[in-house]
């Protein structure tokens, strides 16, 4: 039995995570992080969700605290998100939140308060082979969230519990329903928690200077225009003002205020260069699978230092996106596409 702090977002997964830990005999304390003070109607950490988390904690008979990490969230997640867009990159704020808030700020808080471990409702599994810790995909492949946890290291995994990773989502909901938890039928959170109904464009338009841009084809001919190059993502098909072209055209690159579009074939690349690589354990080279979005396909590749050479040409990854390396169901590490 250990003393566990569960990060309760107000969703069904973390509610059931707390319940499972109680069943296992741990001493469980719940907490909800207040991260975003702005308006928000989606996502995992809105004010109404604090109420849900607190009510679930009451139902389970565990103490519950609210931690205000708004400043950390602003500095570690929102500002880098805005800055990355200003530089024409497409960041993944949920990963930065895990890196800087949930598995750093919260973990340090938990340590200071004398907790042995932090648990979350992420769908992924932490295992130990008697020697080292592993991070593995969830039992429920469709709900697997190991991608957004790839930055964890041995020291962090040793203090991390992911109880729902061994359950399917259906099992999680069934368990919540059986316990009568108010979050049993609550819809999964979808979007970035601090982006409101107005969307990414509205959010960014008040925070960065948006630059109108030219759209050119791969031969350099001007074919259209966009209002804001900062909102254009590699791989994007719509919103480029291209009219009814015969074959679909995709953004294959953004260079300053120029957006280059091309065919699907122009979007294919044979390697991905990675920045800021982190490893679950020791650095790995050789055969891996690379996954470039939260629920994307994993492609066979060979990793050699900071370059992943794809075994078959694959759609280009937008700069700023996280690329996660797997071997079978085990996360090896990951980095950010250059």
């Amino acid at each position, binding site marked *: 039995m250990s003393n566990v702090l569960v990060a309760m977002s107000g969703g069904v997964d973390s509610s059931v995570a707390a319940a499972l830990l109680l069943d296992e005999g741990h001493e469980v304390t719940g907490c909800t992080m207040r991260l975003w003070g702005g308006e928000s109607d989606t996502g995992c950490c809105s004010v109404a969700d*604090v109420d849900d988390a607190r009510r679930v904690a009451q139902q389970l008979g565990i103490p519950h605290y*609210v931690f205000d990490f708004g400043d950390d969230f602003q500095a570690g997640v929102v500002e880098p998100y805005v800055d990355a867009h200003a530089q024409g990159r497409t960041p993944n704020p949920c990963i930065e939140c895990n890196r800087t808030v949930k598995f750093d700020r919260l973990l340090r*808080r938990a340590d200071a308060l*004398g907790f042995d471990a932090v648990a979350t409702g992420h769908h992924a599994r932490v295992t130990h082979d008697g020697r080292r810790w592993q991070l593995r995909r969830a039992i429920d492949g469709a709900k697997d969230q190991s991608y957004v946890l790839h930055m964890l290291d041995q020291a962090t995994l040793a203090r991390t519990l992911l109880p729902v990773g061994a359950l399917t989502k259906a099992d999680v909901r069934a368990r919540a329903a059986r316990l009568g938890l108010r979050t049993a039928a609550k819809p999964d959170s979808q979007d970035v928690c601090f982006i409101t109904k107005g969307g990414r464009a509205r959010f960014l338009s008040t925070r960065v200077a948006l630059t109108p841009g030219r759209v050119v084809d791969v031969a350099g001919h001007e074919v259209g225009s966009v209002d804001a190059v900062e909102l254009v993502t590699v791989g994007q098909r719509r919103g480029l003002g291209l009219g009814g072209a015969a074959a679909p055209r995709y953004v294959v690159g953004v260079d300053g205020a120029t957006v280059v579009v091309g065919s699907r074939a122009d979007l294919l690349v044979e390697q991905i260069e990675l920045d800021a690589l982190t490893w679950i354990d020791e650095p790995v080279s050789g055969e891996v699978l690379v996954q470039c979005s939260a629920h994307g396909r994993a492609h066979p590749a060979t990793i050699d230092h900071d370059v992943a050479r794809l075994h078959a040409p694959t759609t280009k990854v937008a700069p700023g996106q996280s690329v996660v390396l797997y071997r079978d169901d085990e996360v090896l590490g990951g980095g950010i596409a250059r």
Partner: protein
Amino acid sequence: MLAYLDHAATTPVRPEAAEAMLPWLTGRYGNPSGAHAVARAARQAIEEARDELAAVLGCQPRELVFTSGGTESDNLAIAGVSGPVACSAIEHHAVLDPVRHRGGAVFALGDAPPADAELVSVMLVNNEVGTVQSLDDVDAPIVHTDAVQALPWLDVASAAARADLISVSAHKVGGPQGVGALVVREGVRVAPLLRGGGQERERRSGTQNVAGIVGFAAAVRACRAHPPDVAVMRDRLVAGLTSIEGCRTSVDLAGTVPGILSLVFDDVESEALLVLLDRAGVCASAAASCASGAMEASHVLRAFGVATGGALRLSLGWTTTDAEIDHALAVIPSAVAQLREHKNEMGGAA
């Protein structure tokens, strides 16, 4: 062992108050506005309570308006007067927010309020740090004072004699939550927030909370008969805790009521400290208690020029015992040491 040191958030109901209320929650009932014997009895109960509270607050019974609590009283005062409003920077949010909502001015304590202000609000006892503010130099056509935290500690009748509007609340003095009052001096016009049956001389419609009002009066009576005697215990806390390195009182205690002690700890985050104290059976708060349960930087401590990081409010009341103080003195230093030790290890805030 539980040390309840959050009396400024709410203080336990005095047995005298509970006893006085019980008949009105069981055998006795009646709408005070009714025209029959049962109603008349309820009416008599609230009018006797009104007489008693009016005497304590230094007003005529007809000048006392019962409300649902301190927040409603403050809102009624601020929203009810016509003309510009202003308040000091150390006010409770129940004053600050309505003043801002009306576009009113917020002035630093010690500065003169804006000359054009029709109403100026300055609280008698601050809820976060316990300082007593004199109303003598407050110059405005209408002076409002939030006396919610003053009622257990001061003779409000004399301390607020200068005020035209006075807010008080039952649950800070040993009465139930959900009852308060606003003194509205003769000649001061306050438009109602709630319109309807015209109760409380058209100033606050809605059936009165008979049990609560009776309990309010009984609590004030008990508080005056047996005032909380906490100064020595407060001083023990001060001596024991300020001997911790990097711990000091937020303000000079000379000008504070004995029930509220605000401390600041270097290199400690309030939020983490409160969790450790809670787990060790010490109930306290960072600054004020707020609805969300999360901590926000305190405008009051900022106004007093205090860094907000490690604020701790320990508030004492009529049930506080030496054993509770002993427990707090045993728990707090080690909690502070634990957080600091960890901060040094990790090289960052926890």
